[in-house]
């Protein structure tokens, strides 16, 4: 288990030293082909997508990537996808469905891009469509949160059959920064907000948002990714053995049971 506090983890996953989505793709899959464009408006480099082999199984991969040096990060708008990024992801998922390929997603984003152009092109609609379509996608979907799971911008790649959290990865309904400025009108209270929001990998397992936590070992990145690869292979094989109905019912139920409320005095 990570020994870092929730706030330290947030800083860790936001660091420029953190491994990027494309590095996981290159380490986990072989014979990869990168595919571009949403066929609607543009190519969004913040979301990398394509086809590769997971062991001997062809899969579609989709990875959010925050970028490496400054020009690359700017090109990828610091890993905040535009609507085109989500539409490209959906196009590749539909393609995966046509050819019976499982889909493997890697999440690492502060959130969907906040800007006038994103709004004009339907940022909300793009995410909504992904949630709707992923709920019915007839091939297995597995998501690994490798860094920052930022709200709807992360969920749009995480309506999955299994979700894994890296040890220090976080997943949150709102950025702790945004939360602090709403509650205390003070964006410097990020650390307090981080604790209130319960964003750690352990929290995700507790609230049934993630199945398991993956140990981090960046000293031996290749070894760590080999472990992820093996876990993905066994998951994909298990999910491929299910009937379509069982697969989709399982995905629905996975989200259906999440919620804590009272119904006529009894807590659920």
């Amino acid at each position, binding site marked *: 288990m990570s020994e870092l506090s929730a706030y330290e983890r947030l800083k860790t996953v936001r660091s420029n030293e953190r491994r990027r989505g494309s590095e996981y793709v290159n380490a986990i899959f072989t014979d990869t082909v990168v595919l571009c464009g949403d066929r609607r408006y543009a190519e969004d480099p913040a979301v990398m997508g394509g086809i590769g082999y997971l062991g001997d199984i062809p899969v579609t991969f989709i990875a959010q990537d925050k970028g490496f040096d400054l020009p690359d990060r700017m090109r990828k708008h610091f890993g905040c996808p535009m609507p085109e990024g989500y539409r490209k992801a959906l196009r590749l998922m539909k393609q995966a469905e046509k050819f019976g390929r499982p889909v493997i997603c890697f999440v690492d984003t502060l959130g969907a891009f906040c800007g006038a152009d994103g709004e004009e092109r339907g940022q909300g609609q793009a995410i909504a469509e992904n949630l709707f379509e992923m709920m019915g996608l007839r091939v297995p979907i597995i998501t690994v949160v490798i860094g920052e799971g930022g709200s*709807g911008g992360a969920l749009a790649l995480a309506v999955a059959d299994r979700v894994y959290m890296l040890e220090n990865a976080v997943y949150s309904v709102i950025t702790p920064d945004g*939360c602090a400025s709403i509650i205390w009108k003070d964006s410097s209270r990020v650390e307090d907000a981080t604790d209130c929001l319960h964003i750690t990998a352990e929290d995700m397992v507790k609230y049934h948002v993630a199945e398991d936590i993956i140990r981090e070992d960046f000293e031996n990145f290749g070894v760590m990714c080999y472990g992820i690869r093996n876990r993905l292979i066994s998951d994909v094989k298990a999910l491929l053995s299910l009937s379509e109905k069982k697969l989709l019912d399982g995905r629905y139920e996975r989200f259906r049971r999440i919620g*804590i409320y009272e119904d006529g005095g009894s807590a659920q």
Partner: protein
Amino acid sequence: MKIHVRLFSRPKTQAADPFPDIEYELKCAKCKSTHTRSELYAGNFICPDCGAYIRIPARDRIRMLADEGSFSELDAKLTSTDFLDFPGYRDKINKAKSSTGELCAVVSGTMRVEGNPCAVFAMDSRFIMASMGSAVGEKITRLFEYAAKNKLPVLGVLCSGGARMQEGIVSLMQMAKCSGAVRRHSDAGLLYMALLTDPTTGGMTASIAMEGDITLAEPNALIGFAGRRVIEQTTGSALPSDFQTSEFLLDHGFIDMIVPRGELRGTVSLLLRQHRHGKENAR
């Protein structure tokens, strides 16, 4: 628009009459005039002084749409809990309950509109900005499941500040949960109409507000994903005045039509009639 509500009396029980006659005041955000509910009800909650649309409480919205005596409420006892011990959340829930007389930010059930049966849910902006937490997510999910089972179309009257951050990640997951229920209802060949009202933002726009077969909006409603202030702060430039309005969304192709309140019942009724027999219409 911000509405200030004062409650004069509250019903002892909700079970008997879904539309108790409560009197309260609503303030017009535009001209600051104050009006009573009974004064506004007959005029579709349009400000008699300046003509601005005042946000309609959920129960009144359903009452205005439903044929008399046709509304039957579902899951009326479902409510939120402060399971994360989030600062200030318990107070917010209690204040919302006492000021609105509701237990939840969404009211749901079945009704008829000019004889056409449908399931309906309406959100109430007075209740913690109608943000979507577990209770809202569960009620909406159950409604779509009920509608799918009973082959009913769904009309959703949406407004929301987005996901309810006081419930952390569990509130984000409600977006996926509700989307799953919408998907299953859709796969059963049934109609879902979304009516977007002021304001529909954040996680709501990024999920069920944008998943309808037909998407209607009230005039001049704020509809968007990211907050205007956040965008202006991020980009450092001012946005046009019509940015993220219903009219802006219509121009950009994201909604089907803008429906004034006076025409809403007729439009909803016609669309329900056109879909009355679902897929069997063509046979």
